[in-house]
């Protein structure tokens, strides 16, 4: 990335809440994860299989399985076995739930969204 590009990134991220910036960098670092986090924010009591979650968020099951696993790894979601089924739900940890709430509410602000999108695209390169 050029110096000009790095400067722009630094300026865009500079005034972002450090906690949310970290959340973006380490947890919601793809658009699929963003969709999944939004889904579980809107459905905090949902517990379902990867196939069904994929159907709800309008994505392919094969595409979201790994992303769900990574969200489990970073503590955003929890994975359980129910009989023969593997199901996912939002983490029960209060602090993580607060962080998810904070992130989704921050997304109501267009400026924040633009910065978050920029950050994700940058991370995908």
């Amino acid at each position, binding site marked *: 990335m050029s110096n000009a590009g790095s400067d722009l990134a630094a300026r865009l991220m500079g005034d972002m809440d450090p906690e949310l910036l970290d959340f973006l960098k380490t947890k919601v670092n793809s658009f699929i994860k963003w969709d999944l986090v939004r889904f579980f924010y*809107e*459905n905090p*009591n*949902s*517990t*379902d*299989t990867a196939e*069904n979650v994929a159907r*709800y968020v309008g994505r392919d099951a094969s595409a979201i399985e790994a992303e769900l696993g990574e969200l489990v790894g970073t503590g955003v979601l929890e994975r359980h076995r*129910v*009989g*023969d*089924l593997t*199901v996912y*739900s939002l983490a029960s940890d209060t602090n993580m739930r607060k962080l998810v709430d904070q992130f989704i509410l921050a997304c109501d602000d267009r400026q924040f969204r633009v910065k978050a999108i920029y950050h994700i695209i940058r991370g995908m390169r």
Partner: protein
Amino acid sequence: MNERMKTGITGLDEMLGGGFLPETANLVEGAPGTGKSTLGMQFIANGILHYNQPGLILTFEEFPQQYYRDAEAFGWPFRDLEKADKLRVIMTSPEVSQADLEHVGGRIESLVREIGARRILVDSLSHFERVASSPIELRTAVFGFVNALKREGLTTLLTRESAALIGEGDLGEEDVAFLMDSFVMLRYVEIDSAVRKAVLVLKVRGSDHAKDIRQFEITTTGIEVRSKFEGREGILSGSPHRMAESFVEAFVRR
């Protein structure tokens, strides 16, 4: 005598002989738009707001936001009730909820304990057809499911969509309606070129109930059951006629 779980719906409790019996499974069936989900939401909302009985909504179809919006339109503050730990709206699938209820300490059991739930709306039972390959398998699955909810001490209202928009639907020998403790039917009827709605309590196991077919309306505050259809017959066919006409048809025009 057992205390009844009142729906709080004007006219319906009287039809049910006072309300649903506690810890029973109760089926409400009707065509799309007849008001099944509204009736279910009203059962849950009134339980919380008027009888201090927290409730769960288990949805296989709509996202929770849809319930919040619909409930808001009737003046039932579902979002606030969730915040106050009186309500939980759970979106899941029949196969997961069925497996969940078979295990001690499952998600539904935890939520029942967490808010002290006494009522549950399952919307809708029609989705169980997806997990069963035959009517017998469906009946077994539903039997296990409703028994698990009873075990949790819940009074359950299950909705089911009927195929017929107007008129009667068929109940096969393996129909899950036979597993239910009560069966309420909602129907569209055509009278004088206008579509009206009718409610009939087909059965309440172990209790007397109204046998007549009554009109109901969905008002700004929910469902209100009104008077019965006077002087008409053939209501369940969807196109009732005046009794005098049928009398003439049967006895005079021969």
